[in-house]
């Protein structure tokens, strides 16, 4: 499946001040409870692990599952001391991995 994602962070943040990170990921989040037009069960496939690192250090992690709607949209707060890169990684039940990144400039 050709995944996609969108990330939004401020381009510039102040040292030590919390800022909001938003990410939305294209994913069907198949619950495993649905059947196709022929009555055949559709295999469960959800993103089950999501992690965000800042300059290598984990700053946010989530376990998602079948209770989350398709195309999950996550928002959380992070503080930064130095400029650097936010990296997002996730993996679904089919073993498919996705990633995204955003760079931040820290001032003050």
């Amino acid at each position: 499946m050709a995944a996609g994602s969108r990330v939004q962070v401020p381009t510039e943040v102040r040292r030590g001040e919390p800022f909001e990170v938003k990410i939305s990921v294209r994913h069907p989040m198949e619950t495993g409870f649905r059947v196709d037009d022929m009555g055949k069960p559709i295999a469960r496939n959800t993103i089950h692990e999501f992690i965000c690192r800042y300059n290598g250090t984990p700053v946010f992690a989530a376990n998602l599952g079948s209770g989350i709607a398709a195309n999950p949209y996550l928002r959380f707060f992070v503080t930064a001391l130095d400029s650097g890169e936010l990296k997002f990684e996730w993996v679904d039940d089919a073993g498919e991995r996705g990633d995204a990144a955003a760079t931040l400039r820290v001032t003050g």
Partner: protein
Amino acid sequence: MRIGILLLALLAGNTFAQTPAIPASELRSGVSFGSAELRAMQSDDFANPGMLWVERGQKLWQTPVGSAGRACASCHSDASLALKGVAARYPVVNASDRRVIDLEARINACRTSQQKAPALAAESEDLLALTAFVAHQSRGMPLAVSISDSARAFFDQGRDFYYARHGQMDLSCADCHEHNWGRKLLAETISQGHPNAYPAYRLEWQSLGSLARRIRACLFGIRAQMLASDDPQLTALELFLAWRADGLPVEAPGVRR
């Protein structure tokens, strides 16, 4: 009594064909019938899941495909200029073969004849993405389709389909979207049935979907014979829908229940 109503309907259909049944002052986009959460989701470009497709469409726009080795952008250069307002005047009659085509068909025509690439399947991720990207460039612009000259026959066909009764429930599109808008149908509020938000993200679909898919869902709802997604009658109907929504701003990608 029944015959009287039918006669009236026929007369109305002919006499007032040039003015939509819902006057411009009462036109309301489907989003205005949605909940506050739904409206917020549509208007926030980050929360709107349809923007995932728009972004994907932008990448596809720049990627060369097919044996011609060309990207959409190779010929159309700056999308925000070249495509501005295009979605607001579709469907149109295609000059070369005199058929009525919607935006999806136009994009596929460029795929096959210009890029020399295979056509994209209806409702495929890529066709939805390109359509959402193209339509998004017209966001906020008023719908303004032409129904004159060669478009007239298709318009008539679409209007006739709209006012005819269909399916086991023996209902016309107008029975719900012109005579009962604002009323509840099970959990939904019936809107005026406008096309300006499509392709739209429907929570029930958990995906973006085309206007054709939405219309097919209505046909399914009244247990009518299904129109194939490339049936010319469906495109003619889309033309009629755009005309009766004349002036409503393009919202694509909209968000719906």
